[in-house]
C-alpha cells in the first residue's frame, strides 16, 4: 500500500514541475521554489529534482513502460538468514549490531603497539599521513573547535581527532573491526576490537560513569553504550529520530546555513562588485608544487625507464612511506649506519624479519609482493644505503 502512495505522490508532483519549468525559461524570472518533491516534500538538499514529464526527465527520454513493469521485476532471490547475518554487521550508536564482548585498555595497548603504532604514531599522535587518534584530553580539545583561523590567521586551528571531534564511539568500534589494521582489515576479533577501542578512549581521557577511562579499564557493550562523546552535540542539522529528514530539509532550505548564495539572475552584481577590503592574495612561499608525476604538457616522447626499475618501483609503492626517513621509526633508505646495524643480523635474518614482520612493520610491509620480489626490494634498499 505504501509503495502505491509513494508512486502517486511522485506523479502528482509532475503538474507542479511543468508549471515551474515554464516559468524557469523566462530570463530573470523569480527563483523556482518547490520545484519538485519526493513524498510530497521539497527537495532535501536545497537543489532541484527533474521528475518525469511527458516521458522525459530533464533532457533525457525515459521508457514509460518501465514504471508499469518495475513492480513485477524481482531478478534475484531472497537472502538466507545466515547470509543476512554474515553481511548485516553494521554498528549503530544505539548498539544495534554491536556484539557482546570485552577488552581492556591494557590489552588494547599491546595490540596497538603491534599493529597500529607504525601508522598512527605513539599514543595515537599520528604520522606518515595517517590520522592522529588523540592529542590529549578530549574534553579540553573539544573546546578548540571554535578556533577558526578566519578570525585569527596566525592562531591555532581546531584539533579534530577521535576524542575531540567524533560524535559517537560506535563509529570507532565499527571502523576498527571492518577497516583496520589498514593493510589487513577484518582480522581483529570482537574482544580485540573492544580492547583497541578501550585503549583509544583511554588516550583521549574519555569518561564513563563519571570516571576517566584508565589503563585498567575493561570495555564491554554495556559500558560502551553509556559513553557520551564530548562533541556529540557538535553537528548540524539533526539527523536523529522521526524528524531527521525534515530537519535536514529545513536546514538546506536556507542557504545561509551552509555558505551557499542565492540571487535572482537579473539582480546579480555585474559592475563594481568587489568588496572594498578585498585584495589579490597570492600563494604563500612556494606553495605546493611537488606533483607526481611533475606537471608538464609537452608532447615529446617519454624517456624510457632504465632497467632495474622494478625493485625501485616496488619500493616506492610498498616501502617508501615508512622507510623514506626516520619519522616512522624504520631504518631510512640512505642511512648507512642504520642499515649496517640491521645487517649485523645477517641477510637471511633481514629477509625473514621483513617477510614475517618486525616491531612496527607488518609482514612484507603490508604489501602483496612475492618472497622473491620482496627480497629484491630489500636488496634495493640495502644497496641504496651504503
Amino acid at each position, binding site marked *: 500500500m505504501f509503495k502505491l502512495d509513494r508512486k502517486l505522490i511522485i506523479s502528482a508532483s509532475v503538474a507542479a514541475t511543468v508549471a515551474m519549468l515554464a516559468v524557469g525559461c523566462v530570463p530573470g524570472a523569480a527563483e523556482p521554489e518547490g520545484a519538485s518533491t519526493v513524498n510530497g516534500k521539497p527537495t532535501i538538499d536545497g537543489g532541484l529534482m527533474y521528475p518525469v514529464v511527458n516521458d522525459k526527465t*530533464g533532457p533525457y527520454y525515459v521508457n514509460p513502460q518501465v514504471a508499469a513493469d518495475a513492480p513485477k521485476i524481482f531478478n534475484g532471490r*531472497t537472502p538466507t538468514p545466515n547470509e543476512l547475518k554474515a553481511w548485516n554487521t553494521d554498528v549503530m550508536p544505539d548498539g544495534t549490531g554491536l556484539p557482546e564482548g570485552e577488552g581492556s585498555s591494557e590489552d588494547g595497548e599491546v595490540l596497538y603497539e603491534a599493529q597500529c603504532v607504525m601508522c598512527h604514531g605513539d599514543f595515537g599522535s599520528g604520522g606518515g599521513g595517517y590520522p592522529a587518534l588523540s592529542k590529549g584530553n578530549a574534553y579540553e580539545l573539544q573546546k578548540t573547535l571554535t578556533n577558526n583561523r578566519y578570525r585569527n590567521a596566525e592562531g591555532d586551528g581546531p584539533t579534530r581527532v577521535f576524542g575531540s571531534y567524533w560524535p559517537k564511539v560506535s563509529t570507532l568500534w565499527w571502523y576498527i573491526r571492518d577497516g583496520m589494521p589498514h593493510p589487513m582489515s577484518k582480522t581483529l576479533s570482537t574482544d580485540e576490537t573492544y580492547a583497541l577501542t578501550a585503549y583509544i578512549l583511554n588516550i583521549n581521557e574519555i569518561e564513563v560513569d563519571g570516571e576517566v577511562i584508565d589503563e585498567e579499564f575493561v570495555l564491554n557493550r554495556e559500558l560502551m553504550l553509556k559513553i557520551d562523546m564530548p562533541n556529540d552535540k557538535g553537528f548540524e542539522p539533526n539527523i536523529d529520530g522521526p524528524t531527521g529528514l525534515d530537519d535536514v530539509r529545513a536546514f538546506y532550505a536556507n542557504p545561509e546555513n551552509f555558505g551557499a548564495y542565492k540571487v535572482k539572475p537579473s539582480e546579480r552584481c555585474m559592475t563594481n562588485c568587489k568588496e572594498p577590503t578585498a585584495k589579490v592574495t597570492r600563494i604563500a612561499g612556494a606553495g605546493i608544487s611537488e606533483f607526481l608525476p611533475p606537471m608538464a604538457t609537452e608532447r615529446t616522447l617519454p624517456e624510457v625507464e632504465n632497467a632495474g626499475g622494478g625493485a625501485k618501483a616496488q619500493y616506492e609503492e610498498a616501502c617508501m612511506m615508512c622507510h623514506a626517513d626516520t619519522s616512522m621509526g624504520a631504518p631510512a633508505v640512505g642511512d648507512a649506519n642504520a642499515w649496517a646495524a640491521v645487517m649485523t643480523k645477517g641477510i637471511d635474518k633481514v629477509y625473514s624479519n621483513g617477510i614475517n614482520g618486525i616491531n612496527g612493520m607488518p609482514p612484507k610491509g603490508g604489501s602483496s609482493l612475492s618472497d622473491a620480489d620482496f627480497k629484491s626490494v630489500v636488496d634495493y634498499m640495502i644497496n641504496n644505503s651504503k
Partner: protein
Amino acid sequence: MDNKKSNQEVDVSKRDFFRKTAALSVTALAGTSLISSNARADDPAIMHHVSWGQKWGDPVTKNLYGIPSAYEHNVTRRNTKLLASGNYRASIAVTPIHESMGIITPNGLFFSRSHGGTAHVNPNEYRLMIHGLVEKPIVLTLEQLKRYPSVTRTHFIECPANGGQEWRGPQFNSVQFAKGFMSSAEWTGVYIKTILADLGLKKEALWMLAEGSDNSEMGRTVPVDKVLDDAMIVWGQNGEALRPEQGYPVRLLLPGWEGNLCVKWLKRLEFSSEPWYCKEETSKYTALKPSGKAIQHFYANEVNSTVTSPSPEIPWTHLKDGDIVEIEGLAWSGMGTITGVDLSFDGGDNYVEAKLKGLVLPKSWTRWSYMHTYKKGEQLLLTSRAMDDAGYIQPTIDQETKIMGVESVYHRNAVETWEVTATGEVNHVQIRS
C-alpha cells in the same frame, strides 16, 4: 637511429608550428593581416616525408584494447605527498582538467579516491544485498542486477574537498590540483527506485546505508529522498564497464552529491529508520563552522566553475599582440543545471556574460567560452562565476568564509581567480579580504 631521432624533432617542430600558426590563421580570417616572418619559412614537417608515412604502421592485432598515443604521456592523473595518506591507499589522484575536452572524462583519467586502496572485485563473486526496512529483501548477482531496465545519464562526480586545501589562501599553482578533484562521465545503471518498486520500501524507512566491499568497507548514510529521486546503481562508465578505480563492477551514483557518497565496490544497501554515523560522515566529510558546530550530511556539491584555459598549466606566454584566443572553462552544479557563467577580467569587480556551449545537462559539467583579443603585456585577473536553475550563484570568497570560516575543508565553491601576468604566465590567486 639517427634518422628516427631527427624525425622526432621534426614532429615536435611541427607541433610548435601549428601552435603558432593556429592563432595566426584565425587572425588572418578575421581580416587583421599581420604575417610574421616565421610563417614564411618552409616547414620541414611539410617539406620532407615523415617517418610514419614511409613504413608500415602497427597491425590491427596490436593493442586490442587501445591506449593513447605515446606522445600524450603527460596527460595523466597526478598525486601529491600532501594527499598521500595511507601509503596512497587512503588518498586521491586528480584529473588533468586543463587537458579535458568536452564534458566527458576518459575513464583512465577519471579522478581516483579510495579509503583502502583500489579493490579488484571478481565479478563472478559479486553480490548485491538490499535489505532492512523493505518488504522483500533481495540478493542479486551482477548478471541479475544488469537485467533491470537501464538508464544512461551524464553526471560529474566531485570530491567535496575539491578546492578544500585553499580555504585560507591559494596553495596550488595548478588547475589540476586546485579544481581537479572531479571528473565527468556518462553512467549506465538502474534507478534504485526501479528495484524498490517491487521490494517495497516500508513507511518507517528514512535512511539507506550504502556499503562497499573494499578493504575499508566504505559506508555512507543516504536519505531516502535521494534514493526515490535519481539515485542509481551503475555498472557502465562511458560505454564500458566501470574501471576498478571507480568501483568495478558496481557503484552507487547520487547525481550531484559528494563523490564520497557514491560508494564504490557496492555490496549492500540497508534501509533503516535511524542514520548510521559511518566514519566518513563523522570524522571526515563534515564541515566545521566558526560556531564550532560542523555540518554533517552535507550532500550536494554547490554551483561552481573554473577557467581551464588559460590556467597555470596552459599559459598565454606564446600569444602575440592581437591574437584572438578562446577563454574556456567548466561550470557545474550538483543542485541543478547551469544557466549561465559570467567572466571577469578584473578579479570579480566587473563581469560580462560568457557563452555556454555544447550540451547543457542537469548535474553535469557544462562548457563555457569567451572570445578574447589578447593585448601584449596586459595583466588580467580572470574570475568565472556560474549560476544554476535552482537559483544559486557562486559566492565571493568573503561571502562564503563569512558563514563557513576557513576550517571546514569541504564544499568550497567561491569564485576562483587566475592572474595573467604581463608575460602571459598564469598564477592562481584569490581575491579576498
